[in-house]
């Protein structure tokens, strides 16, 4: 079975936060869970200012530190690469979050278990895209089999540092061409 990964095309991103909202709405909780965040970055000085927007969540790293360090083996990788928390085993120690380079793991205060983006596994199992990808109005955020995604983008972009955990995320860089 193949792994899955994210593809993000920054030039298409409206900064509309739909992905983030869909994530919260799908995963629920009170306050609503937030496993994906849209962040803007500013550089340069007026009038030569530039902004860049990234939408990031757990990158379901191919060489994930969270899976490696979890003392109770609660952090589990499915056959398709989706990394999820086995709530029966998790003791909420938070070690995984200390080793995650992306801040993707959060402690749920009420259950005292770690929570994270699980790529909307029930949707994926039902043949649907993750909620965040499904709502994106401009296909800035895409998702698919890692073998395809990795061909289509760069492993780094401005404001994103590629690290040794091999995050399953690729970026389309550059802007549009005029015809």
């Amino acid at each position, binding site marked *: 079975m193949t792994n899955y990964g994210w593809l993000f095309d920054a030039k298409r991103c409206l900064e509309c936060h739909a992905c983030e909202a869909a994530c919260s*709405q799908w995963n629920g909780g009170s306050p609503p869970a937030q496993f994906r965040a849209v962040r803007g970055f500013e550089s340069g000085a007026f009038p030569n200012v*530039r902004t860049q927007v990234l939408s990031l969540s757990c990158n379901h790293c191919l060489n994930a530190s969270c899976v490696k360090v979890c003392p109770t083996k609660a952090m589990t990788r499915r056959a398709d690469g989706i990394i999820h928390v086995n709530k029966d085993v998790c003791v909420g120690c938070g070690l995984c979050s200390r080793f995650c380079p992306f801040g993707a793991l959060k402690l749920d205060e009420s259950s005292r278990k770690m929570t994270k983006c699980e790529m909307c596994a029930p949707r994926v199992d039902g043949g649907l895209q993750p909620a965040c990808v499904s709502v994106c109005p401009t296909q800035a955020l895409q998702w698919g089999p890692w073998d395809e995604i990795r061909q289509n983008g760069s492993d780094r972009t401005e404001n994103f540092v590629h690290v040794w955990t091999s995050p399953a995320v690729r970026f389309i860089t550059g802007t549009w061409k*005029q015809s």
Partner: protein
Amino acid sequence: MAITRRSWLRLTGATGAGLMSGADLFADFFQPAATASSAAAELKTLITSCGLCDSTCGMRASVQDGVLRFVEGLPGDQHSNGGICAKGTSSISTIYDPDRLKYPMKRTNPNKSLHSDPGWVRITWEEALATMEARFKAYLAQSGPESLLFVTRNSPDLFARFMNALGVVNRVDHNDLCYVADRIIQRYTMGPHTFAHDFENSKYILLFGWDLIARSKVVFCHQFTAARDNGAKVVCFNPQYSPTARMSDEWYPIRPGSDLAVVLAIIHVLLDEELYNRDFVREFTNFTEFEQEIRANFRQYSPEWAEKLTDVPAADIRRIAREFGTRGPSVAPLHKKTIGANYANSTQVAHAISVLNILAGTIDRPGGRYFPRTISIPAVDSVYPPPKYPPKTGRRVDGRDKLPLVTEANNGMFSTLSDGMLNRFPGVIKGIFWQGYSLNSFPRPERVAQALKTAEFMVVLDILPVDAALMADIVLPSTTFLEGSDLIARTNNAKSPQVVVRQPVVSAPFETRSLGWLAIELGKRLAPDYFRTSDGAWISSSRLLDEKTKRAGLGETFAEFRSKGLVTIDRPFVPATKFSTATGKCQLYVPEFAKLSYDPLPVWKPKREQPSQSYPYYLLTYIPSMHRRNSTQNNPILHRMMPENSAVMHPALAAQHGVREGDKVRVSSRVGSVVLPAHLTHTVRPDCVLIAHGFGHVSPMLRRAGGKGVRDSDLIPDRTIDDLLADSNFGGSGCIMDAVVSVEVVLR
């Protein structure tokens, strides 16, 4: 493995602190997970469409046990292209907001104020309707229809029929702050009003304040990226480096309110260098007839002249004009608040941009502004023809009658309402019906509250306990769009006709009712002759919808259409050769304007307020992408993304006043001041202060949004009708950005 999606419904605050909105009574509704039969209950998928904005995106709703679990975009919908925005997908959290109004209530505290507890107590719908009937009947009998004020849109058609049946003259809506100027200009220059632009076939797009990317109006967003994918060049004029500016090829931080000068100068170059579309202009416009006047008018507006007013270099204006004239199809879109209502010169801007599009020769042509090909869905008055409506007589408190073209467009005005009620016609308005609007939308909301206080009786219908409800005698709970039915014809992206359904994906909770239901119930009591069908039975909204479905050719019944959900008619796009103006041509020069002593061609006018020693900076307002104007700040997901607003300013401006990031600053205009945290950024001109609209609700019953952020509208001067006349503001623009402000630090 299982991921629970039920926990999101267990919202905190469903009990306790619910004294005023009575939320503690309704824990079961807000915690359906506790009563749900089984985790394995079948998940049903229903098609509907979003009711939050004119994008009306198709939605696929997942419902389980009668509980709405998730909404996402509808594949195959030309408006949404299968996407949806943050507001749409989070709308579930509005349905299940514990602060939601649930039952009719009346006030027990006679002292009406935005800042005191109305002391609401629950009443029955029967009592609410009987009180409204008695009050409205008394006012109509004693003082005539002019004594009633309706603050609501002219829709749905059932409610419009109700207002017409009463002979309501005083209906006001937000369109003076939105698009009425553009609507008037389009009507006289090219035909029916449209927001549709064929971006995907455009090669050159000029954006004057058009910032619908930043509003995340999905219907425009995916068309915009399609334009870029197809190689269009985009040039953006905006004092702020907005998301739209980021997605453009060129950005010019233009001086606020001066866009008109750039448009006039571009037209100057197009005419001077004969770069307009000659075939189109000769055949389909009145250019030849008025060529002398047209050339003489624009001769004065050179790029060098415009540079001084706009800070856009003359060489760039000249180059952009040449590109616009030669690299087409070219288009300059205009939409609503983007620029059409912001300044005293906005009517002129709308006219100038219309001229630009006509000269490009792309009206109803590939790559241009076009008229949507829609399916016509009959309104109630054509299904059940009404008896003759009474004539509309009486005084207009907003003064709209002095602006005949605004009257013709049937839009009333927010910006002049408080002056009308307090000064011009005090005491005329006795009864008020208010629906769907927030007080924050009006310039100077506190003054509007004073004006509302002068009426004897006020009813508010809303989903949430909004600020306006604090002024009401009776508050009525409204359904949301996810609980209602309708047929929605696509307009903003409709080169071929498409209709999508709106249907209740969940049933209306508690005693919430729709505006259409209320129209019928009030109609039966106050204007029964208008609410019967020819066989004497009362009009029923479900039978009406069946009739509309049948007459539009969408099916035998609404239920039949519901099962389809989305219907597209494949029809080739045939460009218009006759335009719906008086002459059948696109009118650069508008003879009707000349007859009314208005300028028949767009001429330069400055904005109303200019920076001064006391108020040295321009005020800019904007609506952030994740909020729908004033109505989503209480939504838990959207609230988390942006709970409050800040005073956004350039570091150089901040340094002049010793302001650092996060300091509390006071921003003042000649009519008011607000205190809010400063945010420093290079994305805005150093002479502007930018404040997001929609925040600063005062209602403590909005337990998330109440008291968070400030009202930008506290800084925006309201207008008198004489102001508008003095400005020759014949499109009635509410001038919501035409203010100047000062800045000082109050707290570090």
